[in-house]
Structure formats: C-alpha cells, structure tokens
C-alpha cells in the first residue's frame, strides 16, 4: 500500500487538470486480488484477458494525455523562442523589460511543467511495473516481462523529446537571465524558499521530488528489479518547502 499512498499524494499535489489521468492503481490492485482469490483455474485466461484489457485502457489514457501535453509544449516552446527573439531585437525600451520579466517567469514555469510531465510518465510507469509484479506474484502468471517490454515502447514512456525541450529551456535561460552573481546552485534561504513553495508548479515539483525519494526508500520486496534508494543533497530543505499544504481547489 505504500506506493498506492504515495501515488495518491502525488495526484493530490499535481496540477488540477492532470489529476484524472494518473494510473488507477488502487482499482487494478483490487482486480488482482479478485482474480487471485476468486477465480477457479478455468476462468484464469478470461480474467487475465480482462486484466490486460484494463491495463491497455490505462496505457491509452496515458498516451493520449501525454501526447496532448507534448503537443502543447512543442507549440509553447516555439512561441517562447519567438518572443525571446522579438525581445532581443527591441533593445532597451521599457516594454522590453516588462516583456523580459514575463518571459523569464514563463520559461521557468514552462520548464517546470515539462518536468512534471516527465514525472507523470515515470510514476505511471512505476505503478504499472508494480501492478504487473503483483499480478505475477498473486496469480503465478507470466505477464510482467513481456508486457513491460511493450510499455517501454509506448509514447508516454518515450520521453526523449520532452527531455530535449527541457534542456533547450535550460540553455535559453542564460540568454534571458542576468549572469548569476551568487551561487544559485544550492537552495538557499529557507524563508524565501518557503514562501515560493506556494506557487503551483514549484510546489508540485517539490512534492514530486520528495515523493520520489520516499518511494525509493528501501522496500520490503527488494529484488533485482527494484531501484536503489535515493538521497538528495538538499532534501532537508525540500522538506521544509513542503510545510505549506497543497492548495485545495474549491
């Protein structure tokens, strides 16, 4: 139930428009339990077919959502580039400064949203892997390995393009931001950081990071298929960033 809880947390802390598109982990777990306990051997094949059907449903959901977002990001990315070009040409007018500030904010938020999409992809993949593992364990099936091979090829998991866009974003930052005076490499200033954590995307990012760390804490069913534990250098600061509760949308 640990993953299930973490996933639920993550969903609650994610962007409102995204919450419906995560893995229905709990339901799938219930199904696995149902299949393993209730079905006599004769119905095994049918039960498995249903299970696979549901999984495919989920994968379709991920794929549609992911590609939709990806398309938006591609458009937005191009837009930002055009805006930056325009601003660079404008010289030192007053509007330019205002526009530049807007662009900076936009880039950072855009970057954040893309990273959150990658997180979305990853957490759903992790959930799928876990549910398949449970299925095999409970029913003695051999579904996991071949199925996960297919999942690896799905659009929602092939995040290379998003990663590339993210890197490009980071590169554009230098041209838009003034050269950093202080060491911005570490999270400094707890107080300031605390306040900032209230912002939508930033808050979600912090939440995502911490959730990831939690999930990677040594599990009871550690095997060759498990990921090693995770430790961030600034994780204690990250924890303080989380003091503010997630913003509830009425």
């Amino acid at each position, binding site marked *: 139930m640990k993953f299930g809880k973490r996933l639920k947390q993550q969903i609650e802390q994610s*962007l*409102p*428009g995204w919450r419906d598109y995560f893995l229905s982990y709990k339901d799938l777990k219930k199904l696995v339990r149902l299949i393993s306990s209730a079905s006599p051997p*004769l119905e*095994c*094949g*049918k039960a*498995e077919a*249903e299970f696979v*059907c*549901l999984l495919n*449903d989920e994968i*379709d959901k991920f794929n549609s959502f992911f590609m939709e977002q990806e*398309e*938006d990001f*591609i*458009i*937005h*990315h191009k837009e930002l580039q055009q805006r930056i070009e325009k601003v660079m040409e404008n010289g030192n007018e007053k509007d330019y400064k205002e526009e530049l*500030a*807007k662009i*900076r*904010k*936009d880039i950072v*938020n855009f*970057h*954040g949203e893309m*990273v959150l999409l*990658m997180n979305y992809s*990853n957490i759903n993949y992790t959930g799928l892997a876990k549910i398949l593992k449970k299925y095999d364990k409970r029913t003695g*099936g*051999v579904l996991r*390995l*071949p*199925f996960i*091979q297919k999942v*690896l*090829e799905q659009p929602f998991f092939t995040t290379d*393009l998003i*990663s590339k866009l993210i890197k490009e974003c980071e590169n554009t930052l230098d041209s838009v*931001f003034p050269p950093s005076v*202080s060491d*911005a490499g570490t*999270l*400094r*200033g707890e107080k*300031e*950081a605390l*306040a*900032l954590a209230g*912002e*939508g*995307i930033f808050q979600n*990012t912090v939440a995502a990071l911490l959730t*990831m760390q939690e999930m*990677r804490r040594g599990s009871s069913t550690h*095997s060759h*298929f498990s990921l090693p534990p995770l430790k961030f250098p*600034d994780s204690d600061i990250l924890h303080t960033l989380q003091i503010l509760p997630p913003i509830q*949308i009425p």
Partner: protein
Amino acid sequence: MSTSFGVLSSPFEEKFPKLPDSPQVTLGRELTTNLTSLSPMTPSCSDKTVYSPNSCQLAKSSMISESLKDGDSFVSYQHSFLQASESSGYSMDTEEVSWDNDATQNFLDIPLNIHVQDELVECRGVLASDGHGRNTDWHEWADQLIKVDDTLDTNWSDLLVDVNVPDLNAELLELPPDVCHRQIHQHQNSPTSGGQCCSVLSSPRAAPLTKARMRWTPELHEVFVDAVSKLGGNERATPKAVLKLMNVEGLTIYHVKSHLQKYRTARYKPESSEGASEKKSKNVAEMMSLDLKTTMGITEALRLQMEVQKQLHEQLEIQRNLQLRIEEQGKHLQKIFEQQRKMEENKSKASLQNSNELSQCQMVENPPSSGNDKPGPSINDRSNIKEVTSDPCLPTDQEYSCKNSLSPKRESFEDHELDSSGFDRPLIKQRAKFNGKEPVE
C-alpha cells in the same frame, strides 16, 4: 477465407501487449459456452472481453477504442454475435475466425449496422498494424459506399497512422487485401447489407479519423508554422489550406484543425498558455509569495525554482535509465535461462539419471505436505497448469531454488517461465515427469 484472420492476429500482437496463446484458445472456447458466467470488472472492458481475444486486442487500438465506446449497439451486438456463433457451431479460435457461409448468413441476420461497424473496427485494427496490401481497393470501396468530401477521400491514410510511430513520415501502412476487402465485399454483395452500409459506415468511419492521434514533433511544427505564415497568419489560414501546403503524408485535416486551435490559443494568451488549469491554484499562493518575491528578488526566486526543477528532471532521467536497464537485464537473463533450459531438456532426455537427480533435489526441498499425492494433471491444459503451480509439489519457490544450482541469478525464475509462448510451461511438464507422475500428453 478462414486463413484471413490469421493475418490479423500476428501483426497486431507485435504492436500491442499480447495475450498468451493457450489461454486465448481456451478463452475462445469458453466464451461460446460461458456467456452467462461472465462477471465484468468494468463496463468498458467487459464489453470488449466478450469478443474473441483478438478483438480484445483490436479494441485496444487507440484509434478504435473511442469509436467502440459510443455504441449501445455494441453491447447488443456481442450477444447476438455469440448467439449466432453458437447456433451455427461457429468456433472462435484465436488464430483463425472461420468465416464460413453459414456463419456469415447468421451475421447478416443480426442488426447489420452493428456488425458492419465491427467489421470496420477489426479492419481498422489491421490497418493500424499491418504493413502489406494495396491501398487502391480501399479507395474504391470507400468511393462506392460513402459520400464524403474530398478531404476524407484522400485521407484514407489517416486510418493507417500508427500512433506509436513518433516520426511523422512513417511509411503509409496499407491494407491486406485479403482480410478486409473480402469481408467487406461479402457484405456489399448480400442484399441486406448493401443499402445499410452507407448510412452506418459514415459514423464509425468518421470516428477513427478524428480520434487517430498524431504525435507532433518540433520539426513538424516548424512545417506547420511555415505553412500558416505563408497563408497569412493563424487567423486567415484554414485547416484545409494548411494541410495541403504542408503536404505531409499521414497528416489529416483533423490533426491540423486541432493543432491550429492550440496554436491560436497559445499565441493570444501567452501567459496562461502554460496551463490554465494551474492558474486557480496560483492565486492564493501568489498573494502570499508576492511580498517575499520583492524582497528576495524575482530573479533569484525564479532561479531557486529552476534549481529544484532541474534536480527533479535529473533524478527522473536517472530513474528512467535505471528502469530501462533493469528490464534490459531481465530480457537478457530470460534468454540465457531459455538456453540453459533447452540444454537441460536435452540432457534429461538423454539420460534417466539426470531426472533422478533432479527429482531428488525437488523432494529434498519439498515441504512436508500432501502435495505429492495429487494426481498428475494434464499439463497442456491451462486450467490444470494453474493447479500445478499452486501444487505444493511444484511451488514457484521450489522450482527456482532448485534451478538456482544451475543459474545463480534470482530473477532467472521469472524469466524461465517466459520461455514458452504461453502458459504452457515445459518446466512444470518436466518436473511432473521427474516426479514420477505420468506425463499426460
């Protein structure tokens, strides 16, 4: 004719998670007999599982699933379909659906619109994944039956867009002429189907065209932007014109339409284009952070945010690579194990002594239980394999702990089970042999 669906199943399995073979066989047979005993888990899925297993896979194609969802007719279809199959002794095998004449006649008695829709669905499934066939037949048929505007005629390739192909310029997937064309022709020729095809097909046909998902890339978007600017900007450019100008194979007007819509939104609301959804969540937080931002400096605040995001990104990349590597290893180990298993099989066939050793190994590791008393099950039957696996004689742990002597890796067990194409587990078969149980063939 009965071989035609053989073409259907195999290419499809390449693209979509496939169901293991032998359960499909039993599943198919059971479906014709166990109609009433179905206990659907969710509405959407249960409808599809009543299909033959192939159809379940077909239904999962993202192009098809949406169109399937909007059909109450769909539900009624499956009942009548199965009734027909029962009455005509029609058997649903996984590899072949025998479209003998009797069965076809029965189909025609069923409310035809649904049946044809299903045909189309299955054909679309083939279109999605198969790489053979001629495109021209499809066009002819389309022209005959359906009166649509020009864009649809030229865009039959829409149906063939494989959503899993990230590169837009994927090859144009073509119809296998045997499969779909023949079946469609059947319905064309029969009197009842002719007229109805027209009206019916327009709706399910429209559905996949709109729902077929395109995976956009920056390069494709560049082409789009170029086309739009050439046509006078996003206000003046029309989807049809853009489509023609872009001249990209596989792109449909629906893709262009939706993309243009997104594009327009992005241009005129640059601030909120990053996600109108999160705007609400921002309001309260923004007020709180506004003061501190001015003291800390907005730039610094943004840098901080950026750092956290970068960290998350980095960790996600690492995690993803780890996951990929883990599965790679798993696959690799499976192969190794498969080889070992084959070697072992050969060895055991050669000499009895080997079998004695191994069975001893097993007995030693058996917990004291009554497991050995169970009669040798029929190994080839999936249902009995389930018993065998739960049989304490051959529990999963035992199997692999014995196996461990041959191969030290822990996950070899899991991989080992995968060496067969389905639930047919030669290992268990072997074990049963070694234990002195009668190998049931």
